[in-house]
């Protein structure tokens, strides 16, 4: 099965949105072993000059995982979800997001190409914005689609 690169490039990725819940942030912070009270306790966050608990640097990747694309279209796009690897990830930050913020994520495929005969690279770029339109960050994800053909 080979990935349909043209179909991937043309894909429309549904916008996702999320209200940043304090409890979800705290669960994430605990799961990653962070103990700085700024990330766990709204009062400590306010004492440090924040309006509420900030989302740690990588948390907002969660908005991207809210969209099932491309895994909801594996058959149409021609790939085996078990053979997809996360190759690279980058975030470029404009401002912090805080518990209580309502965020939206718009993603699009910016590149898709055959890296080798057995491996396709797909680059997805996502912009996350607050409800007032201010941009929080731009994320770029490199997904590596391996073909199921035996080497």
């Amino acid at each position, binding site marked *: 099965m080979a990935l349909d690169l043209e179909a991937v490039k043309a894909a429309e990725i549904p916008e996702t949105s999320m209200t940043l819940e304090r409890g*979800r942030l705290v*669960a*994430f912070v*605990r*799961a*990653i*072993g*962070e103990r*700085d*009270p*700024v990330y766990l306790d709204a009062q*400590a966050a306010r*004492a*440090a*000059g924040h309006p509420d608990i*900030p989302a*740690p*640097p*990588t*948390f907002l*990747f*969660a908005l991207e*995982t*809210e969209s099932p694309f491309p895994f909801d279209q594996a058959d149409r796009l021609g790939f085996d979800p*078990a053979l997809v*690897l*996360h*190759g*690279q*990830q*980058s*975030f*470029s*930050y404009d*401002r*912090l997001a805080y518990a209580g913020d309502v965020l939206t994520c718009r993603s699009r495929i910016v590149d898709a190409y055959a890296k080798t005969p057995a491996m396709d690279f797909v680059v997805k770029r996502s912009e996350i914005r607050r409800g007032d339109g201010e941009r929080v960050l731009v994320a*770029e994800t490199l997904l590596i689609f391996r073909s199921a053909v035996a080497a």
Partner: protein
Amino acid sequence: MSVAVPEPAGLRVGDELAPLPIEPITRTTLALFAGASGDHNPIHIDVDAARAAGLDDVFAHGMLSMAYLGRLLTGWAPQERLRSLSVRFTAITPVHARPTCHGTVTAIEDGLATLALAVRLADGTTTLTGTAVIDLRPPHPQGAA
């Protein structure tokens, strides 16, 4: 706890951040991270799914290790100073692995510090490499260009 902005005057190319050792990664950690991060890929939490994919066992989410690098950085400078963070995932992290996060200052230019980042396991495997940019400049007054 509040983290002080590193002093540009005291910072040198080649300076290393204090390494951040992580507790051994348990299956519980993976389950809790799956739930909180929203990455429910069973390959990280369900050994049956991992075996069906031809693996011996589940392995940690790459984004978990990237989150550990985030901890390294926000423990060194306030998060609002973090301009960018990018990583390449170079090897999988098995269950029970003990990662350590490393950062080295590679450039200081125009008030921005560039760091080279790595996550390495106790056996020497490098699982992530990356870079981050930290803004060391005093904050602009509101509305200034």
